[in-house]
């Protein structure tokens, strides 16, 4: 039930309507703060979708997503420093993040299951330390721990950033839809359910996971770069920070891991907490932590998982998780 690739064969219409509506928001005088919330929602949703792809559908608990975000952001910032336009920086961010994923896949794909998680956790830290010691352009006052400004970021209107992130976000949603309904999705579902059986059915387990890892890295890098256009400034410690992982996990787990609509619901709640809790400094992250633990224990399938269960008459397979096999 979790992945049922033949489900929802049509149903593009609601998504299309929502997209058009969202795209029109800046033009019809929606309050500016809506655009801000939606901007963050788009970024988080794109990031969470990509994590859901790996953790939910491939069984790869990747803790190195901040690495791709940071690389996307840094590529963008450095491209503006050598005088290239922002859109090129965005694309380069995605490409370099994907290339980096290819490189690190050599060691991390030798690890499986929980070892994979350990291996990937070290990657952002390694990059953080690298960027703390690296100054490719600029003088003494730039680079390394001082970070880089995204040149020209202040001249880009908020509405342009909004549309950009909308495109990235919808792109990630469509991508997930496409993947889940394609042979790739079917293959991933098979691997997730039973890796050895999948291999003996002719599935190249490594190849499918590898494609997913690299693809997810590219979109994550793109979303990261887009985030830093709005931010205007990047430095290593916040770019390669475990807080990003927290956001992705929270969004995916609250909404429902392994569910297509899960990250969307989760991302709404995370954005809501982000702004609401800023007024209650000190307890904000505490509350997020409690929510995470609580949801995981009470409703491990997340909000949408529970909703689906309530709607579905065919409950048994929703309650029972399949036994996961070690890849």
């Amino acid at each position, binding site marked *: 039930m979790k992945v049922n690739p033949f489900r929802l064969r049509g149903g593009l219409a609601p998504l299309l309507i929502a997209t058009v509506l969202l795209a029109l928001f800046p033009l019809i005088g929606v309050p500016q703060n809506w655009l801000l919330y939606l901007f963050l929602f788009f970024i988080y949703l794109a990031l969470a979708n990509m994590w859901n792809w790996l*953790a939910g559908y491939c069984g790869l*608990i990747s803790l190195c997503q901040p690495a791709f975000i940071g690389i996307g952001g840094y590529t963008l910032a450095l491209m503006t420093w050598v005088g290239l336009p922002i859109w090129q920086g965005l694309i380069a961010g995605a490409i370099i993040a994907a290339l980096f994923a290819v490189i690190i896949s*050599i*060691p*991390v794909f*030798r*690890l499986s*299951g*929980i*070892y994979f*998680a*350990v*291996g990937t*956790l*070290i*990657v952002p*830290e*390694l990059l953080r*330390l*690298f960027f*703390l*010691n690296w100054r490719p352009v600029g003088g003494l006052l730039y680079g*390394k721990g001082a970070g880089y400004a995204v040149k020209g970021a202040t001249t880009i209107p908020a509405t342009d950033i909004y549309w950009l992130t909308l495109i990235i976000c919808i792109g990630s949603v469509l991508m997930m839809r496409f993947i889940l309904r394609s042979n790739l999705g079917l293959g991933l579902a098979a691997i997730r359910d039973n890796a050895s059986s999948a291999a003996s059915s002719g599935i190249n387990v490594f190849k499918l996971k590898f494609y997913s890892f690299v693809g997810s890295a590219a979109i994550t890098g793109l979303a990261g770069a887009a985030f830093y256009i709005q931010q205007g400034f990047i430095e290593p410690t916040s770019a390669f920070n*475990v807080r990003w*992982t*927290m956001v992705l*996990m929270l969004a995916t*787990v609250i909404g429902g*891991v392994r569910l297509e609509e899960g990250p969307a619901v989760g991302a709404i709640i995370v954005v809501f907490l982000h702004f609401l809790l800023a007024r209650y400094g*000190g*307890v*904000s*992250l*505490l509350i*997020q*932590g*409690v929510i*995470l*633990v609580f949801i*995981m*224990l009470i409703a*491990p399938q997340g909000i949408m998982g529970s909703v689906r269960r309530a709607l579905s008459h065919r409950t048994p397979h929703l309650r029972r*998780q399949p036994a*996961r096999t070690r890849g």
Partner: protein
Amino acid sequence: MGILLGGLYSLVALGLSLVFGVMKLINVAHGDLVLMSTYLAFSMMTSFGLDPILSLVIGMPVMFVIGFAIQRYLLNRAFKISMEAPLIIAFGISIILQNFYQIVWTPLSRGLTPSYAMLSFSIGGLNVPLVYGLDFAVSLIVMLALREFMKRTYVGQAINAASQDRGAAQLMGINANRVYAFAFAIAMVLAAIAGVFLGLTFPFTPQSGVSFLIIAFGVVVLGGLGSIAGTFIGGLVMGLAQTLGGYFIGTGAQMFVAYLIVFIVLGVRPQGIFGR
């Protein structure tokens, strides 16, 4: 110097390694739990003037109970849900603890500073801080004690059996859930010791848990997951890499060199240098 510091690192990593070995859980809250002991010692030092090392008499049992409770009431339930649930819950605990420390002890940087924390002795012209020596000695003692414990006591053997194969252990009549809880509690006692000596060696803030965790990860990956001797040697390699990196490339590159080694080892020998 690096070797002495490495002793401390392996002490921090030991609890993580034990938990991993027994229940195949990466306890991402480990660093924050270590920090709990540091803050307990800090409070006892500032409120009652109790020496940090002596405060372990209280700290160790407290941490034992906390560890038992976390395993019993949170993680045990999580293990039944799915593979990733315990990981995510540990992540949540980590966030909760960090912010809890911040509220209780404020975000300022603190240090455990009894008079001996400033002393040093010299070996061959090198001034070695006394606490570095203590770190190493204590980690060696703890390591040996843990080994004996695992070999000689019933609980130790049960933990060992459960870590080899849960199914087999259950056939032998071992209640795995209980064993898990004990293992976690013992890991927390190790964390308690590590926390106090970390506090004596470095200053700490509510966020320090994350860096402790990452160091511990590096050590565990280097030494091989779940092996006591491996953890010890992994710690030494880590400490040495850090110090040598510092001397040859510059202070900024210290940890980078250490993690790069971790990552390379991971790529070449995923089971760690000394793993099976």
